[in-house]
């Protein structure tokens, strides 16, 4: 029997083979089905392997391939943490491939996507498997470039070129930060293997610097505020199944990198690391969801909501760091498990929602919610699964999003045990931010579903929509089912995650499988417990009881008539509430501070025939305050350096000479 890690590497090789196949068969009309079919099958095999090694607790397996740096080779390792993230990656990959089987047939230029899709999957798998710094960075860059190519697939659409450019700049910047972080970690001796790094001693200042660099590197890929700017541009620009992968899975690979370095390689954390991560996470959650609320492009809304969820995950990781630093193993395990649970959940529902957005896009050609509406009548199945996704992401019981939020809140409630006053007071405040983010997320997805699917059609395209193909529906329905199952049987998920927590934190949550009625009990029953199954059963029973009694004993008559609307019949669908008007109250409450939103009303005097105008000014402060000055500075410097191109030969020579002398001087002073 070949070891688990080799099995995964074979899968990666098969994915790379599929890339070759895609290039070879790019002229064929069958290539779409061929490529997605192949990636679907390979992902399922890889998923099965990863799931098996996670649940069967096979222990870590290693593999060294003689490629890469000659004296180092490429190390790969499959432990519990990697196995969990492989499950996330390959589950998302399988769903996206299945979806792609249907969605890909609408593609106008499949040859711009097909070769890169398997390569992207291979890149994500490899990052998770890598076990030395060199391989890790190489695979990371491979993943970034493959996804960049996918973002640029529709490069002729107006905003996509800019999206690709910003993405490329931010990705290079992130890799630079990671490069420096690994450089620091491996030290002067150059122990690039993760095992060597793990066993090395790191000074506190080194550890703090590595943490900061990881927050920059992994954080920019994951979408931490203020490094998130590329994400809402790039994720929506890609084809929808790739958007799903980027939002649902690639951000998770970034989180994997963060966990691997900060929890695993860096040794015992300091509590101030927890403070930094907590603040960043809480701010990211709230700001991300506020951006999402203001957005009227369905896919960009989803991308911003990804930022929110990344914030939630980082908050929980920050809690885990704080508990871990103080030696509260159980609480740290709880917070860590909660964040992994949320990673899993987010990959489920965000992929599902992007698939739904893609279905709407294929069926209507619109991403702008203000031109949609009424799709629930024309796409009943899509709207049903999209609704499931919306409920799940809004953290409402009995779906999975609620369970992970609930676990995070339980971890927050462990905070009074912490000895540091700063943490004691900050953790509940961050909990408040999370609560605010969760409530705003619910509002955001009421808007997303309500404007897109409910009401009356706002454009002819929405009027003419139809249901999507069966492959897409199958992908969406399987993810919706997973959302539901993870929501009502959370104990199983927690138990499956326990080896990861055991390996990374050194502790695990109590075994949940033995609890009565399949409840989950994070600490002990008198503190808190939750039972998704029973809650679901109660709701179903209560609703069916009500339906039965009313239909049996009271009335069941229905008459269809025109809408009442207080007798004020709206003549056109344009008079409905739009996305922008829906969020107007929330914009008034939060927007004046966060977006510096100002409303201008131009109301003509009576008798004046001009139309009244209403205008809202909003500012993206992150762009204006951070990136615009930065780009201006870069432009300025570039302008200055540009002059170097137009010197005489004598000046060039003197420059070279000056450099040489300076270097010699440095040498003379130093040694």
């Amino acid at each position, binding site marked *: 029997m070949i070891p688990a890690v080799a099995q995964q590497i074979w899968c990666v090789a098969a994915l790379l083979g599929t890339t070759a196949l895609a290039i070879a068969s790019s002229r064929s009309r069958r290539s779409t089905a061929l490529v997605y079919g192949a990636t679907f099958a390979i992902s399922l095999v890889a998923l099965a392997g990863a799931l098996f090694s996670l649940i069967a607790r096979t222990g870590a397996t290693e593999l060294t391939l003689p490629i890469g740096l000659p004296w180092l080779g490429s190390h790969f390792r499959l432990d519990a943490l990697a196995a969990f993230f492989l499950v996330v990656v390959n589950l998302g990959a399988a769903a996206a491939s299945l979806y792609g089987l249907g969605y890909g047939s609408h593609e106008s230029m499949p040859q711009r996507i097909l070769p890169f899709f398997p390569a992207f999957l291979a890149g994500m798998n490899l990052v998770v498997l890598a076990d030395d710094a060199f391989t890790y960075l190489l695979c990371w860059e491979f993943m970034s470039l493959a996804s960049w190519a996918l973002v640029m697939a529709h490069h002729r659409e107006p905003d996509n070129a800019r999206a690709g450019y910003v993405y490329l700049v931010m990705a290079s910047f992130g890799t630079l930060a990671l490069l420096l972080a690994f450089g620091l970690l491996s030290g002067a001796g150059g122990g690039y293997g993760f095992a060597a790094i793990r066993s090395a001693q790191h000074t506190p200042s080194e550890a703090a610097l590595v943490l900061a660099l990881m927050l920059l590197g992994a954080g920019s890929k994951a979408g931490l505020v203020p490094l998130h700017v590329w994400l809402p541009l790039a994720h929506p620009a890609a084809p929808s199944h790739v958007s799903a992968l980027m939002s649902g899975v690639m951000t998770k690979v970034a989180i994997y990198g963060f966990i691997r370095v900060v929890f695993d390689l860096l040794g015992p954390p300091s509590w101030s690391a927890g403070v930094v991560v907590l603040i960043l996470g809480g701010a990211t959650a709230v700001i991300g969801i506020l951006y999402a609320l203001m957005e009227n492009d369905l896919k960009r809304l989803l991308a911003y909501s990804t930022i929110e969820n990344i914030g939630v995950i980082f908050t929980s990781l920050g809690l885990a760091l704080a508990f871990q630093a103080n030696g509260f193993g159980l609480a740290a395990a709880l917070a860590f498990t909660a964040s992994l649970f949320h990673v899993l959940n987010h990959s489920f529902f965000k992929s599902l929602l992007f698939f739904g957005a893609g279905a709407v896009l294929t069926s209507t050609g619109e991403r702008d919610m203000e031109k949609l509406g009424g799709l629930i009548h024309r796409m009943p199945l899509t709207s049903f699964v999209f609704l499931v996704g919306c409920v799940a992401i809004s953290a409402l019981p009995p779906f999975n999003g609620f369970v992970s939020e609930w676990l995070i809140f339980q971890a927050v409630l462990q905070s009074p045990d912490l000895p540091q*006053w*700063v943490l004691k*007071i*900050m953790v509940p*405040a961050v909990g408040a931010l999370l609560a605010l983010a969760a409530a705003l997320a619910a509002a955001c997805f009421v808007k997303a579903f309500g404007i897109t699917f409910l009401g009356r059609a706002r454009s002819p395209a929405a009027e003419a929509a139809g249901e999507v193909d069966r492959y897409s529906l199958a992908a969406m329905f399987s993810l919706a089912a997973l959302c539901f199952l993870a929501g009502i049987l959370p104990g199983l998920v927690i138990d499956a995650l326990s080896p990861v927590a055991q390996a990374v934190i050194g502790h695990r949550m109590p075994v949940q499988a033995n609890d009565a009625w399949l409840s989950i009990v994070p600490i002990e029953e008198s503190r808190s417990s939750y039972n998704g199954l029973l809650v679901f059963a109660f709701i179903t029973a209560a609703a069916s009881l009500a339906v039965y009694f009313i239909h049996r004993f009271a009335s069941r008559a229905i008459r269809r008539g025109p809408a009442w609307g207080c007798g004020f019949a709206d003549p056109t669908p344009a008079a409905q509430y739009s996305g922008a008007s829906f969020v107007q109250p929330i914009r008034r*409450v939060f927007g*004046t*501070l966060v977006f510096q939103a100002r409303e201008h009303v131009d109301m003509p005097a009576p008798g004046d025939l001009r139309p009244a105008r209403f205008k809202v000014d909003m500012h993206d402060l992150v762009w204006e305050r951070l990136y615009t000055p930065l780009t201006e500075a870069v432009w300025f410097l570039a302008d200055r350096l540009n002059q170097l191109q137009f010197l005489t030969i004598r000046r060039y020579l003197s420059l070279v000479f000056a450099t040489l002398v300076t270097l010699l001087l440095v040498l003379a002073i130093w040694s």
Partner: protein
Amino acid sequence: MHNLAFDIAHLLAGGLVLISFMMLYQDRLYALLNIFALHAVVLAASVAWQAFIQNAPHLYVTAAIALVFKAIVIPVALHRIIKQLGIHRDIETAVSIGPTMLAGMGLVALSMVLMLRVTGAADPLAREDLAFALSVVLLGLLVMVTRRNAVSQVVGFMSLENGLVLAATGAKGMPLVVEISVAFSILIAFIVIGVFLFRIRERFDTVDVGALDEFRGERR
């Protein structure tokens, strides 16, 4: 018994912080004055309770001063000033209420962290009193900073002084003489500010202190 004594002291001091927040929230002048009177009443009760549990009769005097001057005389006087001057009864806030409250929360958290960390070894009663007192002082400053109206700045200043008194009584240190002189200096400050108010009003027809900046030519 000791627990109950502690709980009541704690309740009163916490109530003082809460009332400081109500001042931040309030945007009408008369209501602000009433809340300030309430602030003084709670302060008096808190001081009297400290006098009772510490067996310190001179603190009763402090309580009485707080009750008479701050809860009755000054609010009534301010009421009359507002009426005489015909001051606009809405307070113009320089920063809107939401961010102000957030800033207030931040200040309370800050004073908790500071005080509880610094006074680790002290008697728990003095500890929490000091933490609360610092919050009240900072919140009073915040009221002064975020309000444009001179009357509400006076109120902010007075509530700040209440915080000082709370700190002094909790720490079992301030002698009566100092307390009385502080009370009188506050009174004098009040009179000065009152006269000042009349002067601004005469000259600029408003008590918005922004008018002073304009006069100096700092704002266009």
